[in-house]
């Protein structure tokens, strides 16, 4: 378990370093960087590499935004196994990443109770 914490920290930190390098060296905007990372996550899952990383690093792999692409591909592939090519589409419709739902719900609640501090 302690090893798990350690690797969550290291892997999560390293993914953030990749993001920082995209900011500072490639001079990408945050929007471009995040989009790129999500695509990388999706491709890694397509290659079957992201799942082992989640096994290895736990939250270190599920908390970074890359896991968003991973979970979407996962949902689509699951349905595809059951229903073939149509499953890719229906699978996409069924998975809503918990991150998006949570962001929508808490975003709205936030707008109800908070004011920007400037």
């Amino acid at each position, binding site marked *: 378990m302690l090893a798990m914490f350690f690797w969550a920290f290291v892997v999560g930190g390293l993914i953030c370093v990749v993001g920082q390098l995209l*900011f*500072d060296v490639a*001079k990408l905007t*945050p929007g471009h960087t995040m989009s790129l990372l999500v695509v990388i996550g999706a491709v890694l899952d397509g290659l079957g590499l992201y799942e082992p990383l989640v096994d290895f690093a736990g939250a270190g792999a599920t908390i970074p935004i890359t896991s968003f692409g991973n979970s979407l591909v996962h949902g689509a592939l699951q349905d595809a196994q059951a229903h073939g090519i149509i499953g890719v589409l229906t699978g996409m419709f069924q998975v809503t990443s918990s991150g998006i739902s949570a962001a929508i719900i808490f975003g709205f609640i936030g707008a109800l109770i908070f*004011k*920007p*501090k*400037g």
Partner: protein
Amino acid sequence: MLKGQQSWVFDNRPMITATGVTGGPFEANGNLSSDFDLLYDDLWMGQESYEKAHRLLLEEAIKVALKKGEIEKDQVQFLFAGDLINQITPTSFAARTMQIPYFGLFGACSTSMEGLALSSFVVNYQGANYVLTGASSHNSAVEKQFRYPTEYGGQKPPTAQWTITGAGVALVETNKPGQDNPVTTSATIGKVIDMGLSDPFNMGGAMAPAAADTIIAHFRDLKLDPSYYDLIVTGDLGRIGHNTTAELLNKSGLKLKQGQFQDCGLLMYKEDQPVMAGGSGAGCSATVLYGHLLNEMKKGTYKRILVVATGALLSPLSFQQKDSIPCIAHAVAIEMNGEKG
């Protein structure tokens, strides 16, 4: 009177009799807080939105200027003002409140000198007896429009600049000999210069060539030597733009003394305030000039100054469409009354 290619000389020496300067909480902690007439300790200023707070900043600055100038608002002929927000609504709405005939100006952060040059011109040729001119910006309103939501945790690079919250307004009127007030003596209107820089987090670097171009044009048109001025101050170039401009001027053969060349964006804040490369925004040159610099002139620290306000004429749209950042700079020379130029 036109002199040279792009400069005016104001023979009748329009006089800046009163100013009003308002600021926000961040400026209250800055270097120049004692030069503000009114400081708010909350960015909302009791309003429902940042844009309304922005409007209030300008309204209050106008009221202070009128009060200090001991004049009613219906005696003022014109208002020349502008800001950075879409369609300069905060300024126009403030003009609605004040009910003064109004010219809305947009020159980004160069608006302050654009307004002062035009006001001086109008007053110089008896187009008006009293004119108000000013510029304002509100950090959160500007961030919201040009960058990201204020609470968004994006990292700003060290080249970024901090938009100031503040409004500076000056009352310009016909010269009354014997009064010990600053007067405007000449102005140089700049052309739009684009050196192909496109990083909106490095405005200073983009604006530097425009500032240098206008300063060089000013000395060429008026056939003056830089040593004529005690101080040449740029609007909001920040650290990078300021150093770059200094080098450009040096290369062109204009010799400036140590400390003679400064920047409003650098004067405004303390070293330890997290403003990265310095302050910026339409209100930056307006508050520093109409507050700090004119106070210093009255104290006798400076006799003749040249204020060069620079503006980056971009919009969020033009940046997203990968356009570069065109820039402009206007210069106005201010002297103490009685000093013969």
